């Protein structure tokens, strides 16, 4: 496969759609576009045809930094024993349990 072909490939963008006001943007896939303006337009065409969204973010895939899955144990397991962060850890008298 010649490098020539791929130097001319449109860059890859990750697409995030906010399904409705008040909710977070959710990653829904990627697409190729030549620039940011076209990426937003194309994201609308590709990912919101069924009224799946009211807002779209596009990010060049190359701009995303991901945690290394190999570090999953190191980064995320320490959360496991700090259960005092969860509301259910605390037993309260019934009268105030709705808190």
């Amino acid at each position, binding site marked *: 496969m010649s490098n020539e072909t791929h130097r*001319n490939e449109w860059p890859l963008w990750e697409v995030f759609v906010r399904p409705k006001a008040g909710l977070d943007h959710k990653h829904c896939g990627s697409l190729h576009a030549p620039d940011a303006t076209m990426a937003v337009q194309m994201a609308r065409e590709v990912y919101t045809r069924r009224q799946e969204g009211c807002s779209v973010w596009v990010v060049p895939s190359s701009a995303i930094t991901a945690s290394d899955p190999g570090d999953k144990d190191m980064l995320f397991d320490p959360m496991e024993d700090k259960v005092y962060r969860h509301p259910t850890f605390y037993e309260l008298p019934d009268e105030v349990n709705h808190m």
Partner: protein
Amino acid sequence: MYTQAMDTGPKEERKAIRSAEEAELERRFDARIDDAGFIEAKDWMPEHYRRTLVRQISQHAHSEIVGMLPEGNWVTRAPTLKRKCILLAKIQDEGGHGLYLYAAAETLGVSRDELLDALHSGKAKYSSIFNYPTLTWADIGVIGWLVDGAAIMNQVPLTRCSYAPYARAMVRICREESFHQRQGFDALNVMMREGTDAQRAMVQDAVNRWWWPSLMMFGPPDAESTHSAQSARWGIKRISNDDLRQKFVDATVQQAQVLGVTVPDPLLKWSEERGHFDYGPIDWAEFWRVVGGNGPCNRERLAARVKAWDDGAWVRDAALAHARKQAIKKEAA
């Protein structure tokens, strides 16, 4: 729209495990699969797993794109404005499905352009069903009913594929797919119930031509499927070709009864002891002939895709050139 559950790639050789570390990674990988876990893009995976997925996902993507052509054939001739809109929306979905699948394949370290290159050069396969011609409007309804129906059957199990980006793409696709089958059945149902004798004959003729190719969509018989065992081990293929095909026949024969069309199989018969429909032998010679490039429309389909791509080169280049010029201007400012 569907994936042909058939892997005709060269037989892969298992490389000797290089190190203890790699053996451990593979053990953990297998354990996660056995535990019905998911593999994500940046996770370690055996090279063979990666290659198998790239081939399967891209074949699936190519099929969606090529599949736009036999139906695209009838857009300008749709008999009502409503049917024209429905057909356009359906074909557009198929383009979208191809796009989601190329995106999923790209997470495995290959670019869309490389994959398209493989399609255009004839190296990559796509489902042979799209090498058949759409000769009448009824073909459009039958494609929705039978071809999309078969696709759905192939696709639902894939929503639980071990490779998560593929599974997620399949969830999106399945959500959109049921409209495809319903609109096809609806179009046929109207023609059969309210239409003229000529329309009913058109529907029956389309069923006669598309029935057997639809059964072939599930791929060769289990006994002849070279890669199924490994794919099953890896959580890529969860139900066998023959089992899916039987499921399809059972569901579809009943739908045919509702429509009032005859399935063109004189040996089709309910088997009380098996609890399934028995059906006649499939012409596997035809299947391999079409897969091998000698179906009615293979050359035309590929030529159309190559032409669209080649004709579009100046467009893609121009958009990139413009983007680069703008970037330079921005730097300078």
